[in-house]
């Protein structure tokens, strides 16, 4: 035994052992810290660049397009300015669950609204406080009960057919919240626009309900629906623009927009667009008709409301799929500032977390839309809401396409794990935290370049 103990190699090992403790610990710490720094720095390595698909990038010189790419663990805020993309990535320390944007209800500054229809025909609007996109609290509630009756077919749980989502009937001006039920043509009676009064759930038993009854601002007469098959008037939604209310309806098939004073309820103006024909039920929609679900993009600073209606049936090819109306509320009433009949139908509608923004200026329409790849023979992702999506930028000058581009990101990498996975009917693959998506997309006039352009 003592023979090999004396060899030089063993002595060297013994030396290392006696002096190696601190260097070993230092090396371990250096590697751990180094890996952490290296990993943290990799947050800037994601793909984010603009690819031109048609036209010249000069067309987006004047505007600044902002948005967010986020999942539950990190979020990248990007901005496209003068054709360049800049971004900033924040790594969240703890996962943050957020409800799908636009899917839950009408979202505003630190608040989100949702509405329900009770069995007795009253409509309940709940306003939830939000922080960083998560609900924080049980919310205040308000009720409105218009004297309307439903005479059509009911759904599986007895619900009546509405023209649009209940949330489309909510509009806010400052702290004030207005509501009208987005009724289909099967409703009769007297509906109206209501200004709601909210209270906390625990006040339910203590308050005088009359004090919290909503104030009826304007009447919406649905009696025309009582004759024949009905369908004479449908309420599509309520919008707030420039301190006024805009009621969007379809009357005898044609689109009508009426402007109301939010204090007195006086009608300030109205406009009809006869060849835009939104209809609630798909069987009502002629091939030339439009979907009842529409997009509204208010530009509060200039009192412009941009409404977009999609064609209901694919119908004849070569016909524009989307009609965009730019309505000007700056004067006393409503004026149609510009109309666009355009094609913005790359891929198919993104039904999970659709992002859309539109902006009108000097005869040009700027639009950003997230679209999903349609199903075809190459599709290997069985879950349709997780098929690859793309964020497109469109610019229309009068009726012609001036520019089309795509913002390339890594969001579709998150769906790689679903490729070849058979759909087994479970939703377990969809853990919202694990998939990046677009959020908070906006277009604004770029004030930095205003002087030069």
């Amino acid at each position, binding site marked *: 035994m003592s023979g090999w103990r004396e060899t030089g190699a063993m002595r060297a090992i013994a030396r290392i052992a006696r002096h190696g403790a601190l260097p070993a610990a230092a090396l371990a710490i250096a590697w751990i810290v180094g890996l952490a720094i290296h990993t943290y720095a990799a947050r800037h*390595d994601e793909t984010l660049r603009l690819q031109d698909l048609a036209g010249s990038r000069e067309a987006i010189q004047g505007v600044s397009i902002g948005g967010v790419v986020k999942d539950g663990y990190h979020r990248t805020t990007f901005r496209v300015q003068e054709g360049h993309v800049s971004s900033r990535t924040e790594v969240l*320390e703890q996962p943050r669950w957020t409800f799908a944007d636009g899917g839950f209800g009408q979202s505003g500054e630190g608040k989100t609204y949702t509405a329900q229809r009770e069995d007795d025909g009253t409509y309940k609007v709940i306003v939830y406080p939000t922080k960083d996109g998560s609900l924080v609290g049980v919310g205040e509630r308000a009720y409105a009960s218009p004297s309307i009756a439903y005479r059509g077919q009911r759904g599986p749980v007895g619900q009546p057919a509405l023209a649009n989502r209940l949330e489309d009937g909510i509009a806010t001006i400052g702290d004030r919240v207005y509501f009208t039920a987005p009724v289909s043509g099967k409703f009769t009676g007297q509906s109206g626009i209501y200004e709601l009064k909210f209270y906390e759930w625990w006040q339910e038993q203590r308050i005088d309900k009359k004090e919290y009854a909503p104030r009826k601002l304007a009447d919406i007469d649905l009696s025309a629906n009582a004759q024949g098959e009905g369908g004479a008037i449908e309420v599509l939604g309520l919008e707030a623009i420039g301190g006024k209310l805009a009621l969007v309806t379809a009357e005898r098939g044609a689109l009508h927009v009426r402007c109301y004073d939010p204090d007195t309820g006086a009608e300030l103006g109205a406009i009809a667009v006869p060849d835009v024909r939104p209809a609630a039920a798909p069987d009502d929609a002629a091939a030339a008709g439009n979907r009842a679900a529409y997009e509204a993009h208010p530009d509060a600073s200039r009192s412009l409301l941009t409404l977009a209606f999609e064609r209901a049936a694919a119908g004849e090819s070569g016909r524009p799929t989307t009609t965009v109306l730019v309505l000007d509320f700056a004067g006393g009433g409503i004026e149609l500032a510009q109309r666009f009949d355009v094609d913005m139908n790359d891929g198919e509608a993104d039904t999970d977390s659709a992002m859309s923004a539109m902006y009108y200026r000097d005869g040009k329409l700027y639009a950003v839309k997230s679209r999903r790849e349609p199903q075809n023979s190459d599709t290997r992702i069985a879950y349709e809401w997780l098929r690859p999506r793309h964020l497109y930028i469109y610019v229309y000058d009068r009726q012609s396409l001036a520019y089309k581009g795509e913002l390339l990101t890594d969001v579709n990498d998150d769906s790689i794990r679903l490729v070849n996975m058979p759909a087994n009917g479970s939703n377990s693959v969809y853990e919202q935290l694990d998939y990046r998506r677009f959020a908070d997309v906006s277009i604004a006039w770029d004030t930095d370049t205003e002087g030069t352009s």
Partner: protein
Amino acid sequence: MKGLYRLIGNEFAKWLPVVSLLCAAAVIVPLLLLRSRLKDYNEFAVNARFEDVYASSGSILLFAVLLALACAYFLVLNYAAYWGSKSIYMYLTLPVRREALYFSRLIVFAGCLLCLLAAQLIGIRLGYALYVAKVGSYAEGQFVMHNGFFLAMIRSAYFRMLLPLGPGSIASTLSIFVAATAGLYYAAICERSKRYYGLAAVAAAFWFVFRTISYRLSENGSTYIGTHSLYPNCVLLLALGGFFVWHGLHIVKRGAVA
């Protein structure tokens, strides 16, 4: 200080073969486990993300086992001083301060655990390289996620635990490390000196460590009701760790462990 340095060297010499084996296992075995998980991967199979492959390969369990082995060896080294040669009497009569005796063992134990953690992280990084090499070898690499290592590190609760990237989670991981290391040593000291009441504090510390770890590992699933701040738990664990060091030192200085 010289006495402390020599004691550390002496202690580390006892650890060296064991910690080398543990670290080698932490680097090599996950690669073998991953390789067998990736065996059937091709462009017509479901290609799971790296963090999911890693978790399902058993590498997380392996780390827990290696950690338990290191803790067991630390206890064996402690108790060995009472068996056979009863070298504890020699240690307590050495011409060095008894603080040096206490700290040499704690520092070497902590250092060896850090080496094990570093080795596990090497295994993770090499495992990712192995994963990318395999998944990138077919279908022109379209199954490889761009910036995938970063995404795995921030998305997996387990990786966030080992390599925290934010101030709160760094503090949390550190405080778990301090409380668990000092707590294990303190438990042995309490038992040897027959101060069994100290074990109550150790039990509390291990309960909180357990709670913190299980909370952090389940953050992904239950966060739609919001996350809790990690700081209160950090303060608690650091306070307990501080108490363990202070009182453990006190007992060793009085020679009550003999």
